[in-house]
């Protein structure tokens, strides 16, 4: 078995990114879409930590902290908006939100 290299982490990250993207693109439920975005951010985190480890540099890890913070903040705002939406439209489905078009 080959030793695990940074490339492995990057590949894992890419796979996770793709899964996140698939989630964003396919799931009707906005909550799951949001979760999928978390997956994407996680992919980024994996990348950053892998680089940080490889480079023996701590900045990457700091970066991760900020990414997590941002993820939290985004989630909070997005969920707030979702609640407002749900209150007005009684739906959490992405494809039922389409009065703005064309």
């Amino acid at each position: 078995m080959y030793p695990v290299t940074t490339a492995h982490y990057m590949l894992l990250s890419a796979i996770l990114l793709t899964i996140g993207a698939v989630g964003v693109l396919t799931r009707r439920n906005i909550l799951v879409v949001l979760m999928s975005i978390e997956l994407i951010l996680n992919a980024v985190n994996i990348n950053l930590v892998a680089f940080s480890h490889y480079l023996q540099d701590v900045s990457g890890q700091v970066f991760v902290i900020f990414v997590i913070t941002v993820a939290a903040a985004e989630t909070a705002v997005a969920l707030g908006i979702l609640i407002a939406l749900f209150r007005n439209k009684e739906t959490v489905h992405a494809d039922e939100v389409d009065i703005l078009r064309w």
Partner: protein
Amino acid sequence: MLLDSVLFYLFAILIVGSSILMITRRNVVYAAVWLINALIGTAGLFLLQAAEFLAGVQVIVYIGGITVLYLFVIMLVPLREEMLQRRFASQGWIAVICSTLMLVLVSVFLFRGADSFHLGQAAPPPAELGQMTTNSEQVGQALFSRYLLPFEMASILLLVAIIGAIVMSKARGAPGSSISSMDN
């Protein structure tokens, strides 16, 4: 070294598996749970790479904070009806194909680049960091020196998130519907 590899693959499988399960579960609660699993896997990977502090943050903030936030909101949504509806958008297969293609392309680039993977110069750890041993200390040191501004701004960011969440989720109709009326 071997253990590292084994653990990596284990965590990788956990992450990928949980992620896939997450995006395919009909029940949103299950999805949230699989998200937690994926995040735990990631935390494991962090540990594997000597980023203990991050692993902690991951568990506390992500799993303890964000996922709970999700679960709160999930509670607001009527799950029964949800269970009866289509899970996937109409563009599902196209999306999957496109995403897979994207993955293939990214992988192609990654494989091509794998040889030349001398990421950075792999500089020896800076002297000042070398004196400090723990990961947390290193992170803390960086956070409060070079990343002081982002750190401060992150607080504003969180403030914005709080304001945003409150502004958005609070129902209208109360006499003063701004935050100031929260004390009512």
